């Protein structure tokens, strides 16, 4: 047979509490994380797109201002007049420098303070709208100047660090160059350079927290006819805005992945795509914006993974939070199971101790709950058991004592000696029938007395025992003793402790009849009234005085200790009480000089208590 492994209640509690606390914790953390992360990524994406739009619009508005200013100034009549002038002296040139510069100063006031207008004349004149001083360089030799005056149209100059023309502390600029053409000669008389300071915008771009990188794409596709064949040269450039610098990547340069991806996309963006759009491609989110007045495209790129970057912290916090909550939950489950099972285990241990026979075990009161009450009940129960056991022990002890005494009484050497002596005399006298009768009576007496070692005996056998005894005594005391035994045949099988009647009839003989000169009569009656079995032993002996009778009754009722003369009666009473309990009563009635009646009244029921 396979023994099923006994599971501990504590482990069960721990398992249940653990399961019911861990599952909600894990579920809560998982759902919270999923909810927060999905919102976070969604918000982040929309923030990145808004950021791109903000930067694009801001820059586009500025470029449009730059464009308008450049066009207006380059078409201004006074500008043309001054640039067409040939100065006779430095003094004259400076006079115009001051006057035209003063007039240009309003441009910066009316437009954006980040925009400065410079005019460089072929005639040497230098004019400016702002407070910055000129660098005192020969600008007419510069490449950018040459590209402007040699161009038929506007020239956008890609973002650069420092200023082309002025002494300034501003870091990043871009510019629009507009050639000023003499209408009559068609020759360029100078260039208007509108320089836009983009420090604030670039600082914003660099400081933005979402990790989006911005590039200005300069599509530069030229179509040339070589050997009568049309050839397209794509010389696109990407100006990347890095911290502390700008870097222009050419098409063939080795470049970072996102810039390469941007290059790959330029071809699409240059065609019929909308002026602004956002797309997700190759693990990047690309937002692009085509400026209105320039062919530049502003591109914002961010790795899709970057959107998940803020989640690292959330993941970390979630994991740590979950682990801590789990530890707390397990800890709480452990504590709770311990709190609940500790008194139960204590009870179990105490019960085991009781089982092993230790009835001195007591449990201190464990709290005010049901288990606390149980511990009180347990203590009461153990006390009761102990009392009961003690009582039974004492009763058993007494019973054994009584039985021992009974046995001693049975094999009373005087009785045996006297009986055997009488038997010898009968045999000598050749009264063989009498001898046989006495022998049979003695045999019956011992047989029923020993009763095969059993403690209980049927009333029939018990009566036979008493009758055998009476027969022996009658033969010994000849005509001094007569007796009558009657029994209701319904009571033959009624069980009772053995050797109940013999002591009573013995008492009747020795204390009642023996002292009477004319002998006496003993009547043993067993009959039934209603639900009671009544056994009475009546003698017409000496009787008992009232004082003695009262004292005897007190001894029976255990109000006083018994003495040796009353021992037989007390023994009978004790044994009947032990056997029948309160169902049995032993009564004694006696009148001095008239006789004594001992009545045993047993209410029917289970025979043994």
């Amino acid at each position, binding site marked *: 047979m396979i023994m099923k492994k006994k599971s501990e209640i504590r482990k069960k509690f721990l398992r249940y509490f653990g399961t019911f606390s861990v599952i909600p914790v894990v579920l809560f953390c998982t759902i919270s994380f999923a909810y927060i992360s999905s919102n976070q990524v969604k918000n982040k994406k929309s923030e990145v797109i808004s950021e791109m739009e903000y930067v694009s619009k801001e820059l586009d508005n500025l470029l449009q201002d730059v464009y308008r200013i450049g066009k207006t100034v380059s078409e201004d009549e006074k500008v043309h007049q001054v640039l067409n002038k040939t100065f006779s002296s430095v003094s004259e040139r400076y*006079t115009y420098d001051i*006057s035209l510069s*003063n007039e240009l100063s309003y441009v910066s006031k009316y437009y954006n303070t980040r925009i400065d207008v410079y005019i460089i004349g072929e005639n040497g004149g230098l004019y400016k709208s702002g407070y910055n001083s000129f660098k005192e360089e020969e600008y007419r030799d510069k490449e950018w100047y040459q590209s402007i005056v040699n161009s038929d149209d506007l020239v956008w100059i890609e973002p650069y660090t420092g200023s082309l023309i002025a*002494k300034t502390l501003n870091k990043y600029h871009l510019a629009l160059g507009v050639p000023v053409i003499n209408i009559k000669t068609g020759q360029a008389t100078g260039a208007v350079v509108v320089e836009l300071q983009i420090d604030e915008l670039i600082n914003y771009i660099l400081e933005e927290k979402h990790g989006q990188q911005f590039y200005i794409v300069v599509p530069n596709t030229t179509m040339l006819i070589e050997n009568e064949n049309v050839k397209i040269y794509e010389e696109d450039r990407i100006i990347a805005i890095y911290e502390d610098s700008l870097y222009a990547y050419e098409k063939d340069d080795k470049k970072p992945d996102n810039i390469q991806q941007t290059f790959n996309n330029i071809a699409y963006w240059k065609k019929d795509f909308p002026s602004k759009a956002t797309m997700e491609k190759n693990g990047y989110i690309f937002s692009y914006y085509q400026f209105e007045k320039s062919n530049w495209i502003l591109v914002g790129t961010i790795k899709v993974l970057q959107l998940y970057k803020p989640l690292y912290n959330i993941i*970390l916090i979630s994991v740590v939070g979950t682990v801590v909550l789990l530890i707390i939950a397990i*800890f709480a489950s452990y504590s709770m199971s311990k709190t609940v099972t500790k008194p139960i285990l204590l009870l179990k241990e105490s019960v085991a101790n009781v089982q092993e026979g230790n009835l001195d075990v007591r449990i201190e009161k464990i709290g005010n709950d049901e288990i606390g009450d149980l511990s009180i009940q347990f203590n009461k129960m153990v006390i009761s058991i102990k009392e009961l056991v003690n009582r039974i022990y004492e009763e058993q002890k007494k019973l054994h004592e009584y039985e021992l005494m009974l046995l001693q009484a049975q094999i009373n050497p005087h009785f045996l000696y006297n009986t055997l002596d009488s038997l010898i005399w009968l045999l000598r006298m050749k009264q063989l029938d009498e001898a046989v009768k006495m022998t049979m009576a003695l045999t019956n007496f011992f047989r029923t007395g020993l009763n095969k070692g059993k403690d209980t005996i049927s009333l029939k056998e018990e009566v036979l025992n008493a009758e055998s005894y009476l027969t022996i005594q009658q033969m010994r005391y000849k005509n001094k003793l007569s007796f009558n035994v009657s029994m209701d045949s319904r009571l033959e099988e009624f069980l009772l402790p053995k050797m109940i009647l013999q002591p009573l009839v013995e008492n009747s003989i020795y204390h009642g009849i023996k002292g009477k000169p004319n002998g006496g009569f003993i009547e043993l009656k067993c009959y039934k009234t209603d639900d009671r079995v009544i056994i009475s032993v009546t003698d017409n002996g000496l009787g008992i005085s009232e004082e003695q009778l009262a004292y005897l009754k007190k001894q029976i009722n255990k109000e006083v200790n018994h003495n040796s003369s009353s021992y037989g009666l007390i023994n009978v009473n004790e044994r009947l009480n032990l056997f029948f309990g309160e169902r049995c009563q032993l009564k004694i009635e006696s009148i001095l000089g008239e006789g004594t009646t001992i009545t045993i009244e047993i209410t029917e029921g289970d025979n043994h208590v």
Partner: protein
Amino acid sequence: MGQSKLRLLVILLGALIVLGNISSGCSKKNPEHQKNDRLLIALSACDKNNARSIALISSVLEEAEKNNMSIEWRCAGGSFTKQKEDIKKLLELMPQYLIIVPARSLGLGEAIKEANQQGTKVILLDGQVNDVTENEYLCRISTDPEWEGIASARIIGEFFNGKKAKVLEIQGKKGTSVSKERSSGFRKELCNYPNLEIAGVVYGDFDRTVTQQNIRKFIEAGKEFDAIFAHSDEEGLGALEVLRKLWDDEIRIPIVSVNGQQDVKKALIANKYYACVESTPYLGNHVIHVIQNDMCGARISREIIVEGKVVTRDNVSELMGY
């Protein structure tokens, strides 16, 4: 719950907080500059909206670079409140020296005290702070606005040579120490020329356009003047533009201003300007000199005044014209 369990719980929660802090990245990082072996200095500039300020800042930056010093700088854009914030942020970098070009003469005392408390030495540049004691800054390096006012009064006095004349004073920003000192010097010196009187005061905010507007109002109010003393070149050039338009390019009265920037040099050469009192912005070398001396343990003068120069058409080539 037993004490040991409570302790365990507290430890767990503590660990959570610590991990949370780590994850949110709130631990303080050392400023990058501390890794750098170069001496770190900080500059809080008042503004960079005029040629002089640009030249002043550039001069300090260039000199620092030249002398292998690391410099962090911030510009307050003329805002006193922003300058206080700038100083706070610069002090977080724990520089050894803090150079302040004050936006106002009052109110920076607290910030300077904070610098002293953290062991950063303060150098006041091109301005004055009145709510600090001399012990609270290492040195003040400045031009001499009062002398500049005096020199300007002398130029005008000599121009009129005893003839009666009214002088229009164009002051910079109200409340700035430079304006106060220049005006004080000018008026003090003007007392030596009883023929000269102040026709009125116009505020130009050190700005060409603002000056033009205010002078127009002054003229439109019917007030007359025979000379102009402008506290800055920008204001002088603004006045020049108004008069040029008023008198059809002919400048009939002397204009004298303080600073010496490029445009004034041109105006002097073009014979549109009478004189300029140069107030050099190239104070960077003085600043670095003071720092180097201090680091060597040399005694530092509490005040270094860099004298200016009077420039007229006759010696215009001497004007640097920043």
